[in-house]
């Protein structure tokens, strides 16, 4: 699905990613954990195509295509989805209009016809149930005046609507109470299939009780310093990040 090789990225003069290697196959769930400032959000931003970052070295292949050559919109059209850590409020653009535009541009990219209004609305109705999103929110401006939980649920709702091949959840659990967390996680689990993959980026192990990963990677100072199964997350929870920091400080 996605193959990241020796990825280096910087913002300004500061190198943040310093040689990331990661291989994610269809049907897999990978968790990337790490202390603050380790480069977790940079990784998701670089993959999604945020232009603030400069890739200085390495390559990323997504479904056989050179991901780094594609503009952000084409990455999304190829099936990459980033659930934002801080979803953006866009006053004046309704959720519905936004999603219809997105869906139709993705369809056009694949040479498909526009979805009819009837089919689109049926899809909205169906998918909003998945994250228990009030149907009224769909007609409101994108994220405007949404609570923290509603914003995160809206991200998963969009994910459900766009049906991506690879979803990257960037700290989707941050700021969520346990009920919202459960709803979000249930939504993600329902969307999981053997044909798609998920990368869960998180600081805390808590989310991984609900979205169970096949692999856990620990990111520290711009590199994946340790990889393992789901038990690695529990180990990290027990020991804390300080252990990791001590262990890999020397290598730095």
């Amino acid at each position, binding site marked *: 699905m996605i193959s990241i090789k020796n990825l280096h990225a910087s913002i300004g003069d500061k190198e943040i990613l310093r040689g990331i290697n990661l291989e994610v196959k269809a049907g897999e769930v990978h968790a990337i954990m790490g202390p603050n400032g380790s480069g977790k959000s940079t990784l998701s931003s670089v993959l999604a195509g945020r232009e603030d970052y400069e890739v200085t070295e390495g390559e990323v292949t997504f479904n056989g295509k050179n991901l780094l050559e594609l503009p952000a919109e084409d990455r999304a059209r190829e099936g990459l989805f*980033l659930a934002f850590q801080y979803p953006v409020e*866009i006053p004046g653009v309704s959720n519905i*209009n936004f999603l219809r535009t997105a869906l139709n541009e993705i369809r056009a990219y694949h040479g498909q016809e526009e979805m009819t209004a009837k089919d689109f609305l049926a899809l909205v109705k169906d998918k909003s149930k998945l994250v228990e999103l009030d149907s009224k929110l769909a007609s409101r401006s994108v994220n405007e005046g949404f609570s923290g939980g509603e914003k995160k649920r809206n991200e998963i709702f969009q994910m459900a609507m766009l049906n991506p091949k690879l979803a990257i959840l960037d700290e989707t659990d941050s700021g969520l109470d346990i009920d919202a967390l459960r709803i979000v996680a249930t939504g993600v689990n329902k969307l999981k299939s053997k044909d798609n993959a998920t990368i869960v980026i998180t600081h805390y192990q808590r989310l991984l009780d609900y979205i169970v990963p096949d692999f856990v990677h620990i990111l520290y100072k711009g590199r994946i310093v340790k990889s393992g199964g789901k038990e690695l997350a529990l180990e990290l929870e027990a020991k804390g990040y300080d252990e990791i920091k001590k262990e890999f400080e020397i290598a730095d």
Partner: protein
Amino acid sequence: MSLVVDNKSAVTQNLLEQLQKKSGKIAFMPDAEIISAIRYLEDKGIPNNKHEDYKYCNIEAVLRKEFKSVEQSFNELTNADIAPLKIDEAINLVVVNGVYNEGLSEKMIVKGLTVKSLNELSSSEKNILSSQAKADTDALIALNTAFSANGLFLQVDKNNVIPMPLHVIYVNSGNANIVANTRSFINVQANAQATLIESFYNIGSAKVFSNFVSEKCVGENAKLICYTFQNEGPLSYSVNTNQVKIGKYSNYNNTTMTLSGELVRNNHNVVLADSNCEAHLNGLFITNGTQQVDNHTLIDHQMPNCESNELYKGIAKDRSTGTFNGKIFVRKDAQKTNAYQSSKNILMSDDATINTKPQLEIYADDVKCSHGTSTGKIDTEALFYLKARGIGEESARKLLLQAFAQELIDKIEIPSLQERVLHLFEKAL
């Protein structure tokens, strides 16, 4: 015909001479006002960028560069010319090159509504002309007063509600450079109510300098909802002055949409002359190329318990310039005034310019006033968010700009006018 003009007074002198040759005596304007107008012009001249109020809008330079010679070669227009400009829901009235054209206007008898040319005013009605727009206050008003064409008088008699919108189509058309001094007087008497659309077009092949002055009176407990629709195209240079006076318990509401015109200067001056009245001024513009749009507003709170609201938004592309200069006066007697003003702008290119200048002058001590202005580029976070969902750069930009303007487009409560604005707005994006 074309004289070499190289200084300020020469521009004015040249224009006065040219216009004088072409126009006959104006019978409807009080003689004293005409004399006062000529004196003012000779004394002050046409304003250039050294004039504080015209700092970003050099009218003198426009006249010097584009209107060295004024041919006044006006075109006659037919119903076929006017048809596409009409609005279905409204009574359409037509003013061609400043002259009210009864033949092209729709005839409809509506109770309490008077429509006639300024020439047809009775001697008692004439006194009302120039009561709001004084020639000795502004050079463009003076120019209009001295050379006013036979414009439009529109009155809604007291206690009457006009059930459909009134649409005045101000259309200019010439074969060679023309100057149109268009004048109108709108009088909404006590307890009356009307909706007025004023549309501005240039459908000729030549350049037009349009100097429009409209006086508007809204009587006690009366309501006037106005839409100003400006789509004059690249050959047009216009100054539009609205001098408005509103009375006790009255309501005046204007939304100005500027969609094209090489230079558009709007002077919107509203006097809240009595207590408990309210005025709402809204504006939206989008400029491209080398276009210039300059909105000047003056809200004059003279009496207590009144409210005013201003919301102006602009989008400047390419090398264009947008200006908002909004002044609010709160005079000593205007206690309990609520006055709000907001101007928001988006710059779409590094070469575009936005000037904003909010001004508050408050002489009363128990008032609520606020103003805010912001100018920036398109929100890059929002843009990235849209792109990250598969929306292309261009559609994403359009979506955001439309969202920015939506608040103002929503204020247009006449469906076909709203559609017309939306269509032109989208085209200009």
